[in-house]
């Protein structure tokens, strides 16, 4: 959830807690109605509200109710063990019938129109995705959701989503049964006109960002539900690449592939899929160590470390300079 404070104080709305439900282990779901009996303002899929807690804390939670009924809002709150009291307070202190002050809904995770969507949710990251599914289904778009979690009993709204949309579209992957979401398989193949919306823990989002390197720019939309948990999904630090044939040195930024960076600097590299699949961009490593992210090289080739696919692979953590035969 975004932690940046808004530059103005958003209008607050007083609400009454209509119900407190427990859709999964350690997840509380609050249904809110306005104290004045009015409707809530219309909101867009992906929106969140600020919740003003009694102890002075302000926390942001994504809305996961239907936008069709503006008489109530629903949020889902995971109890996090190291929380500074926000989620614990919601779980332990809030009861049905009590009042709660919230902000008007705001959206930092807007849904862009596209013909096809791939939704990826990890744990409580499902919440902002729920209204998105409702919106794309109503608009007749093609979509599929992969929802991963530790076990089914920790995965809020999983059964509800399966029942509403069917298991063709809603893929529930419980780690204790099927293992983790296989991101390589889900994201290995870039698709045209498909946007990827992902919400979940930092580690998962880091990995998703890695796998989306080969997708057209701008397709990936993410929201981290724990803003400070940016867990490392491999080396995303900028690093330098020296082109041994010309002596030029190029900096590869966090959100850039080596291929893009060296092409911008005027070097020519043969490439085709730009997704680590076809092997066309194979480049000889003169010195330095690569972190291989392609699906073209065999494990033996990756271990030998003599060549790399520059469309997706990067410098290994701790290697700040790669020298490539370019």
């Amino acid at each position: 959830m975004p932690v940046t404070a808004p530059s103005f104080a958003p209008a607050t709305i007083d609400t009454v807690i209509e119900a407190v439900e427990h859709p999964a282990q350690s997840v509380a779901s609050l249904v809110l109605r306005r104290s004045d009996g009015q409707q809530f303002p219309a909101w867009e899929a992906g929106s969140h509200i600020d919740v003003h807690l009694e102890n002075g804390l302000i926390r942001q939670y994504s809305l996961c109710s239907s936008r069709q009924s503006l008489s109530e809002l629903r949020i889902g709150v995971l109890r996090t063990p190291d929380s500074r009291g926000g989620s614990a307070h919601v779980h332990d202190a809030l009861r049905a019938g009590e009042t709660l002050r919230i902000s008007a809904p705001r959206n930092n995770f807007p849904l862009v129109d596209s013909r096809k969507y791939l939704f990826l949710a990890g744990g409580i990251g499902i919440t902002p995705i729920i209204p998105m599914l409702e919106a794309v289904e109503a608009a007749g778009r093609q979509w599929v959701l992969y929802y991963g979690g530790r076990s089914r009993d920790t995965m809020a709204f999983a059964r509800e989503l399966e029942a509403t949309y069917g298991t063709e579209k809603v893929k529930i992957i419980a780690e204790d049964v099927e293992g983790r979401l296989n991101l390589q398989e889900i994201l290995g193949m870039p698709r045209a006109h498909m946007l990827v919306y992902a919400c979940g823990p930092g580690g998962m989002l880091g990995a998703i960002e890695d796998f989306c390197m080969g997708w057209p720019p701008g397709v990936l939309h993410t929201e981290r539900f724990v803003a400070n948990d940016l867990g490392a999904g491999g080396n995303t630090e900028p690093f330098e690449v020296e082109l041994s044939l010309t002596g030029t040195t190029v900096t590869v930024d966090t959100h850039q592939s080596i291929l893009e960076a060296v092409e911008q600097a005027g070097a020519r590299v043969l490439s085709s899929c730009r997704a680590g699949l076809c092997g066309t961009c194979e480049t000889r490593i003169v010195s330095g160590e690569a972190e291989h992210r392609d699906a073209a090289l065999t494990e033996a080739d990756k271990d030998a470390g003599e060549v790399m696919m520059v469309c997706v692979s990067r410098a290994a953590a701790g290697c700040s300079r790669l020298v490539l035969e370019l």
Partner: protein
Amino acid sequence: MSTILHEPAIFTEDPFDPAVIADPYPFLARLREAGSVSYLEATGSYAVAGYEEVYEVLTDFETYSSAGGLGPRDIRKDEAWRPPSILESDPPIHTVMRRALTGVINPGTVRALRGPFTPPAVELTTALAKLQGFDAITDLAEKYPLRVFPDAVGIPEEGREHLLPYGNMVFNAFGPENYIFKQAFAQGDAHAAAVMKSCQRESMDEVGFGAQIWAKVAEGLISEQQATLLVRALLSAGVDTTIFGIGNTLSVLARYPEAWAQLRKNPSMAKFAVDEALRLESPFQKFHRTVAVDTVLGGVKLEAGTKVLVFLGAANRDPRKWGEDADSFSLDRSSSGHVAFGMGLHQCVGQPIARMEMEIVLQQLLERVQTIEPAGAPVPIIHNVLRGFESLPVSITAAR
């Protein structure tokens, strides 16, 4: 969230008309301009020719299925069921076959072939450079892949004469059952039987791609039937395409003497020249996909079960992707992203081999030939889906 839908442009010209096949590009430009998606009256299928739509169809294998076959009929409706080849399958069947094949053909195994693939090219080009001219197809493009590729697969000498006619059949079947198709299938059974024999485990040498594919049966990854089909896929997809690739590259370079001169100075550019020639004269011009679920493409509604004819060769010349000079060859252009090898799930497994064969032949020719130019009109092959030449006379001056 709304998309404005429109009807497809109705197109009356037949893409499989021999006159269109002989000179396809004016037709393809008209098709591209007609609209994002056209309906071809001649074949009763939809057609996409713009880069954006072609890329979308190729990369969205869930919506645009291969399991209906690459031809105009839905092979799933055929009476006689036959096990699907890798080209005609969707995941999960495709997944195991693809994994078996990429375990065998990958950047590492192809790298090791550069050694054995070079001497035949040296030999052929040395002999040709002594002449004042030759036929770039019959004297070179057709000879080279047959010298190296069947050996790499490891099939016996006997029966190799069936490879070209067999490939011709397989690919022509991606078009309608017209006169061209019937010609290709004239002695179909004999060619098919001979090639199937070459695909058996007993026929293989011990080290080639064929033997390695059969080893995947022992590992339990694929069935014996799938192994046969995979070797057959290599034999049918790996020869004609590369012959046309080499021939088409030379047909382009013979028309661009400055590019030849530039390449002579800098032979390491050969691979970029090959890539640009593949874009401009794509050997595999078109094939079909089957719409798996009702969908919308380029603002046009497509119903499940209909066929879409995908024009790779037209996408590779789309000015919206490649600029106003899309129809000309440029060594300075980055042709990255062209779809001559397809894109996405089914993107050509043989791509590294094909690129290497083409690059080796070109580099060896550059070393020995100072200038090359057309010496008469090239004769295009009349083929339902492949683009190439039967004959391409060139005159040359030898390098001193």
